[in-house]
């Protein structure tokens, strides 16, 4: 049954808005991230979770890194990475009004660049600590993980973040002015 009175309709709309995205109406809908990055995040967290179960010094160092990465990945899934799903269409020269959802995300990435960079710096510190622990424990898995994860962080800064900002620029330039 649909609401019949304006007041009830308004209340339901407001409730729905709050339910979908408390405090972040610009990102009211959930959007996926590219599957390749979903797999990468999943594998990274699995590896780190396994390392976190190891005894000291590797385990505690891995736990610290895991906590940081979980927090960062949540932000990546929330607004940093979803615009990348538009790349195949943009590469084909297609820009359609239904892509407008990505604009608030790219704008947030631009606004929070320093914060995102600081998160990477914190991750570097945690990975340095993990690598130090790995060397101390002669743990090659942890050593390889730390060096590989540092490389992933550079990929984010060198490639993904600039690409996301360029997606925003492309959308802003080509979408109708209403967006």
């Amino acid at each position, binding site marked *: 049954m649909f609401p019949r009175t304006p007041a009830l309709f308004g209340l339901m709309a407001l409730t729905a808005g709050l339910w979908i995205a408390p405090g972040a109406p610009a990102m009211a809908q959930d959007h996926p991230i590219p599957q390749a990055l979903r797999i990468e995040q999943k594998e990274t967290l699995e590896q780190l979770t396994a390392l976190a179960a190891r005894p000291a010094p590797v385990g505690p160092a891995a736990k610290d890194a895991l906590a940081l990465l979980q927090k960062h990945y949540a932000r990546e899934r929330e607004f940093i990475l979803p615009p990348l799903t538009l790349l195949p269409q943009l590469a084909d020269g297609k820009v359609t009004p239904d892509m407008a959802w990505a604009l608030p995300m790219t704008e947030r990435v631009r606004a929070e660049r320093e914060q995102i*960079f600081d998160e990477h*710096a914190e991750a*570097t510190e945690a990975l*340095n600590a993990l690598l130090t622990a790995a060397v101390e424990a002669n743990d090659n898995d942890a050593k390889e993980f730390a060096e590989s994860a540092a*490389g992933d962080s550079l990929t984010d800064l060198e490639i993904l973040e600039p690409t996301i900002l360029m997606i925003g620029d492309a959308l802003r330039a080509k979408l109708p002015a209403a967006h």
Partner: protein
Amino acid sequence: MTVRHARVAFASLTAAALGSFLMPGSAVAGDPVAGKAVFQSNCVVCHANRAGDNKVGPTLWGVVGRKTGSVPEYTYSPANLGANITWTDAELDAYLAAPRAVIPGTKMAYAGVKDPTKRADLIAYLDTLK
């Protein structure tokens, strides 16, 4: 004085003042043996200490005395390429204290070595990489 030079001067002055306040004389001569430990716990995930071995960051072999953006086979950020800094001990001290204050836009995702003694030790170690 350019903005960068002003930042370097300010960072150097601040680092020197903090060093004098926190650990008198510590910024003058670092201990390269202690510095190797600082390198291993702060830098090695991204930097190698061997010639020609570029990882996430460029090799630190020969870093003292070389210009920013000059290591072959390493892709620098535009910020580092355009920084035009020669890595003296003083420049390294300022940079290692607060990398983004000295080279805004650097892709080195590292908050810096805040302890002036550790920084002096690290620089003393980097001085040996030649």
